[in-house]
Structures are given as structure tokens and as C-alpha cells.
């Protein structure tokens, strides 16, 4: 009466039911645990019913194809799957990387093995079965294998480049790329060349690179990189006091200047220091172009929280009553910076009315003028 698989599900359901009882009594009801275990019971019952109803999806013997009776083809997948499972287990104990790798192997095993088993039963003709398998799996296998292969080559090459001296690296790069180009040219000129020769060229070339990579990995990174790595991170030189050869190029053409920054105002140890793009030295007056949105970068370099305030004249709110026009940044701590964008449609005619200051600090003003 009970089919093979239904026995399994009965066992599972009973186990779940017992766990549910123990859990509710001993550990105390929590909605998550209860839902999970109860869901398991429900699913178990559903599967018992399904497997009984379909009789394990077994065809009656007289309808089974001849192929189904044959022994399945030899397969490495059980072994690979087991290795994958082991890897996941190791991963849970050591690093997540192994866990993920193991998971990938397990999933790959399921896909490969499942389709293999299915294809083996497609007919009694092994050649046809192989073709069926290929049709489904090759579109997946080829790109994956190519990506892995390329990845290995790239990582190997990177290992080589990390190990050799800088200038030697450039020479090496030229040599390797010339060889690749040369091989490509040969193949292009003689498309009818024997496949064996091409295979040999590719395999030998790849092996050479992989071997070089292993060697490079063994001998370690070149000294300057080791040193840079020791000093925390590779980028540190870009942020040092001295000019960096690579990253400090065309500072005035960087994003910030393009986005209409007219001036940089720093509050250094209680002093306002203003600089204007293209004009050397500190400025007492900053010119804001008329009717153009113009940004001022404000940096606080003084202990405490400060903001930059721009006073841009006054507006009459009612007869004889004026209100000062103010624009300001937020209050920012030392080390922070903000952008203040002003669009001034009206010119400043007599100076002294438009200015920048830090509220609460006396005697530090930068005049603003609009032509």
C-alpha cells in the first residue's frame, strides 16, 4: 500500500509533528518556530497524498521503455555532489567562501545529474541520449566553462604582473599580447589549419600563463606593493600632502569646478580664508557672476560646529520695513564641508552690503560682489 517515497514523507511528517509538540511544550511558543514546524507538517501531508495518488510516478512495468531497465550510465556526479556537500559543511565552520563554493558545486551537481539521468531514459539509443543531453546542457556548460577558463587565465596573468617589476611588467605585457596577436593572425590567415595544431597552441599558451601565475603567487607580490599593502590601503598616496602623479591632474577641471564652483571658503582656526577659481592667493572679495547659479564650498577646519552665512542685501517687506536676505549652510563639525549655492540676479552697487561670515565669529568677513 505505502509506496517507497510515501514512507519517507510519513516519517518526515511524524518527526515534524513530534518536534512541534516538543517545541510548543518545552521551548515555548514563538510564531516563527511554530509556523515553520507546522508548515513542515502540512507540506509532509501534502506530499504523502501526492506520492500515494501518483504511485511514485512509476510507470507500469509493461509500459516502461527498454532503456529504463538498463543500468544507468557511469557518473561522477555522486562523488562531486558529496565533495560539494563536504565543502559547504567546511564552509559553515571556516569561511563563507567555502560555503558558497560548496553551494555552487551542489547546485551544479543537481542540474547536471538530473538532466543526465533524464536524458539516459530518453530512448534506448545511447548516441541519441547523449545528443539530448548536449542540446540542453551545452548552452549552459560552454559559457560557464569559458568564464571559468578565462577567469583562471586572467587571475594567473594578474599574479604574474603583481610579482614582476613595474617596467618588466610592461615589457611582458607587450610580449604576451604580441604573441596573442600573432597567433590570431596565423589563425586568420590559415583558417584551414589542422584543429590539433590550434589546440596545442592554445593549451600550451594557457598552461604557460597558469604556470607563470602559480610561480608568481609563490614568489609573492613585488616589494613596493607589499609595502603599500602594509600601509593600510593602496590609495593612501593619493590623499597625502604631496602631489600625486596620477590623481592630482587637472584639478581645476574636476567635477567640482565644472559644477560652477566659484570659490572655496575655509574656516581655519577661527579665520575665514577664501579662494577663487583661477585667481591666486587669498581673497577678501569674491565675485559672483550675475544671474548664474554659483556654488561656494565651505569647509570647517576649526574645533566646534560652525556654518557659513551669506548676507545678500535686504528686501522691503512693507513700507519702510526691510528684511535681511540670508542664505546659509547647515551647522557642520570640524572636518566637514558643504556647498552653498547662490543665484544673484541683482548687482551690488555700493560694496559692503553683501558678505560671507560665520555666525558667532566677529571680525571675519569676506565681501561678495555681483557685477
Amino acid at each position: 500500500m505505502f509506496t517507497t517515497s510515501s514512507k519517507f514523507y510519513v516519517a518526515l511528517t511524524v518527526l515534524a509533528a513530534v518536534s512541534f509538540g516538543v517545541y510548543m511544550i518545552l521551548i515555548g511558543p514563538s510564531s516563527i518556530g511554530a509556523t515553520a514546524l507546522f508548515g513542515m507538517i502540512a507540506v509532509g501531508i501534502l506530499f504523502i497524498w501526492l506520492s500515494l495518488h501518483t504511485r511514485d510516478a512509476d510507470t507500469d512495468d509493461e509500459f516502461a521503455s527498454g532503456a529504463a531497465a538498463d543500468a544507468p550510465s557511469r557518473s561522477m556526479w555522486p562523488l562531486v555532489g558529496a565533495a560539494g556537500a563536504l565543502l559547504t559543511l567546511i564552509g559553515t565552520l571556516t569561511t563563507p567562501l567555502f560555503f558558497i563554493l560548496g553551494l555552487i558545486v551542489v547546485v551544479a551537481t543537481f542540474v547536471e545529474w538530473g538532466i543526465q539521468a533524464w536524458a539516459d531514459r530518453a530512448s534506448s539509443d545511447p548516441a541519441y541520449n547523449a545528443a539530448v543531453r548536449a542540446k540542453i546542457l551545452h548552452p549552459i556548460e560552454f559559457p560557464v566553462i569559458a568564464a571559468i577558463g578565462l577567469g583562471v587565465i586572467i587571475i594567473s596573468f594578474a599574479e604574474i604582473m603583481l610579482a614582476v617589476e613595474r617596467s618588466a611588467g610592461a615589457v611582458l605585457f607587450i610580449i604576451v599580447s604580441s604573441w596573442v596577436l600573432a597567433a590570431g593572425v596565423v589563425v586568420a590567415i590559415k583558417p584551414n589549419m589542422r584543429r590539433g595544431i590550434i589546440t596545442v597552441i592554445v593549451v600550451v599558451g594557457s598552461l604557460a600563463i597558469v604556470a607563470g601565475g602559480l610561480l608568481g603567487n609563490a614568489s609573492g607580490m613585488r616589494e613596493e606593493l607589499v609595502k603599500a599593502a602594509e600601509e593600510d590601503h593602496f590609495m593612501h598616496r593619493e590623499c597625502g600632502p604631496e602631489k600625486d602623479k596620477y590623481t592630482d591632474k587637472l584639478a581645476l577641471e574636476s567635477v567640482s569646478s565644472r559644477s560652477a564652483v566659484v570659490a572655496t571658503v575655509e574656516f581655519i582656526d577661527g579665520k575665514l580664508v577664501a579662494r577663487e577659481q583661477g585667481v591666486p592667493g587669498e581673497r577678501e572679495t569674491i565675485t559672483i557672476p550675475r544671474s548664474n547659479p554659483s556654488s561656494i564650498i565651505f569647509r570647517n577646519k576649526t574645533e566646534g560646529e560652525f556654518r557659513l552665512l551669506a548676507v545678500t542685501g535686504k528686501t522691503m517687506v512693507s513700507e519702510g520695513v526691510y528684511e535681511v536676505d540670508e542664505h546659509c549652510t547647515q551647522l557642520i563639525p570640524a572636518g566637514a564641508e558643504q556647498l552653498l549655492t547662490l543665484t544673484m540676479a541683482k548687482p551690488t552697487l555700493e560694496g559692503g552690503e553683501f558678505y560671507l561670515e560665520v555666525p558667532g565669529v566677529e571680525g571675519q568677513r569676506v565681501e561678495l560682489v555681483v557685477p
Partner: protein
Amino acid sequence: MVSAGQMVNRLTPVLRRLKFLPLVGFVALAGCASNAPQDTWAPEGPNAQMIDDLQKPIFAVAGIVGLIVFGAIAFAMYKFRDRGQPIPEQTHGKPVLEITLTIIPALILTVIGVFTVRTVFDLAKTSDTEMVINVTGQQWWWEYDYPVQEELGITKPIITSGQLVFPVGTKVMLRQTSRDVIHSYWIPKLNGKRDAVPGRVHLNRLEADQPGIYAGQCTEFCGLSHANMRMEAVALSKEDFAKWVDQQLADYQAPAEGTLAKEGETVFLNQCVRCHQVNGLKRADGTPAIAAPDENVVSGAAPNLSKLMTRNTFAGAMFDLVTPECRADVWDASRETFGEKYLAGVSEECLNQTDLRSWLRNAPEMKPMYANPALLTSTGGKYRGMPYLALSENDIEKLVAYLLTLK
């Protein structure tokens, strides 16, 4: 013997084939124009020189390659022309030839590329800037403002339009932007072009070896009057530039009571101040007259007219503010006398009365500007350009007298 009739018959097809010859001739002749203020082959400053040093050899290389290619085509066309012979045997591919013909151009382009990239980087240099001018484009004129730079005597910001005045032998950084659509600033004799893009500041470099006026025009299509959006860069010797700065910073001189110009000032206050700023101009109640172009013009700006008569073009350098004789006197002046003549500005005798009056009478008729308020629903009632103001001839008379005092 061939009769004349036969002769004509034979020649006709030949002549018919040559009908494009005059066109080619014109193009060739245009290359010889002597009055070519925007000639890209005649650099007059270090930046344009750098470009020229690059483009001449490249042009030569391209020319030689072009000649070879055209020669080969002509030869093949002639040698293998259809004489009814059978179609020759067809083959596919010739790897050696194909590879050679790929490698040779690649090498040529690599060499050109190296020099080009180097020049591009040299041109982008800004670290040795000696002076800054903000250049703002809008439909359809350019505004220039000079930030305060005490070292150059600019103690208050200067603002002008149409003509950009700068000292010779000085590395000037232009900070370019736009108030409406994308424009492009190009003075061919001084440097390459660079776009002026709203919301961004693009840097450009201007430097001239000799005093003089260098012409250019907007090179990014920007609407109806794009072709009328010109600019002139006026290089003055360092001494003359200092004088120009003093001129620009000089205080406003109100016209004397009872003169026609004084009446013109009143008309100006009533009609023009809502768009045009004249620094120092005061209303009858003594408060400064501050223009509000942001409330009346789409781009948010109209030319500042404080020193109108110190420039000699107007409306995007489309019209001359001086008569043709006086213009020639300045443009054709020798290097030594040019500065003095330019600084003299526009005198009453030299003023181009015709164009200035026509402009005041009906500006949109002089320069296409979408200035008709009836068509302005999409701009919220703001004008694009200067509108028709329905001024009386009497008012125009007064205004011209007043504008003449703006020096």
C-alpha cells in the same frame, strides 16, 4: 576637315560634364579671401599656434593620403573601365594585402594620436593662469564679467558685452557658462572652441600676441538668431588695458540739467531700466535704479549699458555702433595706434545713428528674437531678446543723446 557644327556636337557632352567646375572654382577662390577675420589657418596667439602646429602636418598627411587614394581610384576607373570585356575571375580575400592596409593606417593614426593627445593636454593647462574672465552666453549675445582682481587694477567687478577686452601676452582663463541653452565660444585666431553649458563652468584659455580685434561667432546652434550671435575679443597692450579698466570703473556722470540727454535719462528710467542696468543711475527719488532682467527676460539678463559707448558693436556684435569709416579707422589701425583709437570709444560724429535708432525703434525687426509678447505663453510672459517698445521718434532722439553719454 571637321565642321564647326560637328565640333560643337563633340564638345557639348564634355562641357556638360564640366558644369560643376565653376562651383569648385568658387570654393578654391574663397580660400584666397584676404579679409578673413575668422581664418583658422592664421594663428595670432600661442594656443591657436599650438593647434596650427598640429593641424598643418596632419592636413599634409591627410592630403597626401587623399591624393594617393584618389589617384588609385582614378587609375582603376580608367584602366578597368567597361569595354565589354568578360568579368574577370573573382577571388575572395588577400590576407597579406589586407593586413598591410590595416597596419599602415593604424601606424599613421597612432603617430597623429600621440601628438593630438599631447596638444589637447597642453591646451587644457590652467595652472599658470594670470587673469580670469567669466563668459556667459545667452540667446543671442555674450556677457563678460571680470571678477575683482586687485593685481590688475580691477577693484570692482567689471561687466560688459559683445566685446571681450583683455591684455596681450597674458594667459586669460575664461570661465564659460550659459544662462539658457548650449552655446559655444570660438575665436579662431586665438584658440579652439569650447561649449558654454548651463549649470556648468567650462574653462578656456585666451592669449593674444598683438593688440587688435579678433572676431568669432557662436558655434553651437542655439536658436533663431544663432547666426547673429557674434563676439569680438579685443586685445590691448598692458598699459592700454589698465586705461580701459579705469574707464570701466569710472563713476557714472549724470547728464547736465536741461540737456536733451537729461530728458533721455528720464525716458531710460521709464522704459529701459526694467531690463538694462546702468551703474550709478539714480531714480528721481535718489534711490539707485536697479534693473530686474530676471523678471523680464527669459535668460535673466540684458546687456549692462553703463559703458555702452566704450564698445564699438552692439546686439551680440551684430551691428556696428560706429559708422563704416570710423570702424575702418579702428580695425585697420596700426598695432601702435590701435589701443588709443579703441579707447577713444564712440564719439557723436562716429555714432552709427541709423542702426542704433532702428534698434530702439523696433529691435525684433533688426534681429530675430521671438520678442513678440503674444507668442510668449511658454516663457511666462518674459521676453526673449529686446522687445518692440513703441517709442516715439521724440523719445528715440532723447535716448540716443543719453546713450552717447554712457562712456
